């Protein structure tokens, strides 16, 4: 494993050993990850970013959770039955991530695209940590991941998330409420508790991974402005 010396700050690196045979220096594009709970405005913001980037003539590609050719359908099916235990679920999602990393993210970066990730490894790690998985184990597992050029966490108060999710879907999602954890038989209580735990896990992860917290309690336009400003700097920085 190549360790950068303090004087040499590599522009591009994997968190751990990465993907065998891939040289990060060849990945010319930019990888931008947007994290946040359901209702944090992630999809809205990503759609805005895509439109903005494409208008300025930059090619983009989008990835997200559970979108791999390899396992997305099977993962979906397994989750419906809620019969996966936590290690299995963690590894299943990691497989889904790795498949998209190798087949979409890396080729697109090599071709100079801007890759927008609708959630990246941090959501996966936070979910697993809330379910009691060991942080060191997760860090080793996701040593395959490429460090993004920018990670933006859309932070929204759990009570505001409730309002947005109810307004949008008229219910709270089973998994986004962490109902599998048995915090409470009450969906509302469980949602609040789970989202609170997720936020704690993100804060814990922030100690080792570099991401920017964006206050997404504000109106969509204000968040968009913020993101554009930050991403402009990131794109023109080199």
């Amino acid at each position, binding site marked *: 494993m190549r360790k950068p010396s303090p004087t040499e700050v590599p522009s591009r690196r994997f968190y751990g050993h990465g993907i*065998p045979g891939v040289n990060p220096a060849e990945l010319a594009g930019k990888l931008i990850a947007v994290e946040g709970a359901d209702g944090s405005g992630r999809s809205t913001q990503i759609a805005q970013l895509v439109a903005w980037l494409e208008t300025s003539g930059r090619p983009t590609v989008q990835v997200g959770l559970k979108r791999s050719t390899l396992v997305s359908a099977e993962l979906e099916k*397994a989750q419906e039955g809620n*019969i996966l235990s936590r290690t*299995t679920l963690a*590894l299943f999602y990691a*497989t889904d991530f*790795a*498949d998209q990393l190798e087949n979409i993210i890396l080729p697109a970066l090599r071709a100079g695209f801007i890759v927008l990730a609708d959630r990246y490894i941090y959501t996966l790690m936070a979910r697993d940590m809330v379910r009691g998985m060991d942080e060191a184990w997760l860090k080793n597992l996701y040593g395959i991941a490429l460090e993004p050029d920018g990670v933006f966490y859309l932070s929204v108060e759990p009570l505001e998330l409730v309002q947005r999710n109810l307004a949008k879907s008229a219910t709270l999602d089973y998994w986004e409420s962490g109902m599998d954890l048995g915090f409470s038989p009450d969906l509302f209580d469980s949602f609040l508790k789970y989202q609170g735990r997720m936020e704690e896990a993100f804060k814990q992860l922030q100690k080792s991974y570099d991401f920017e917290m964006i206050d997404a309690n504000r109106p969509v336009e204000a968040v968009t402005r913020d993101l554009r400003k930050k991403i402009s700097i990131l794109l023109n920085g080199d």
Partner: protein
Amino acid sequence: MYSPMKTFAELGFPGRLIAVEGLDGSGKSTQIYLLKRWLELQGLKVFFSEWNSSTLVKNATSKGKKRELLSPTTFSLIHATDFADRYERQLVPFLRAGYIVLCDRYIFTAFARDTVRGCPPEWVRGIYSFAALPDLVFFFKTPLEISLQRILDGRPKLKFFEAGMDLHLSTDIYESFRIFQGRILEQYLAMSREFNFMVMDANQRAEIQQVLVRKLVKENIDLAGFKRQGPLPLPPAVRKAKKVEPPELVAEEEA
């Protein structure tokens, strides 16, 4: 980074896990089948589990293999997912319930294969660090040529990943299989001492090997402790049906 792995016995499980490892064609499946029969005939609690058999994950694995979608990383992860599912939902509950669990291949298969495919050994071992070590591992050692012959004679149609074709070792599938199996054997031999493999001479006749397997199992595991208490409980449907009959004893007391 990780605390040294412990066996199920060291972790205080009432059950014991016995694993067999070896190249394809080493005869390990035959040996573990014969061991299973012997244990069952003594009325012991036995559960058998095979590598790559979780029904949940199987679909994805076979699709990945058929359509050659797997890279070394996803090959490794999908097998780890399969293993984790069996480990958490079957192996651990059976071991906690005091069974002798027999595994046709265990984590060492992944250690050997994934390393040959170019995944860093520390990464692979880290992933499998949630699993405890077997209480007994039999490694069926054959000279490469013998196991190749057994496989190539009996089943000439080789599969893509089985032959290591993804590693581009050779365009000829048989040649690729030879090289791939040779490398896996090297990995097994390198692990042998670290994980206390009981190395079996898989060149000997099956019945001679089985005598030794049974002897070693008897010496290392107190088999008497795994006897099933009484007959198997009836399936719920049958139990329910039986309950409907009025118990005679109660009627007598009332009289």
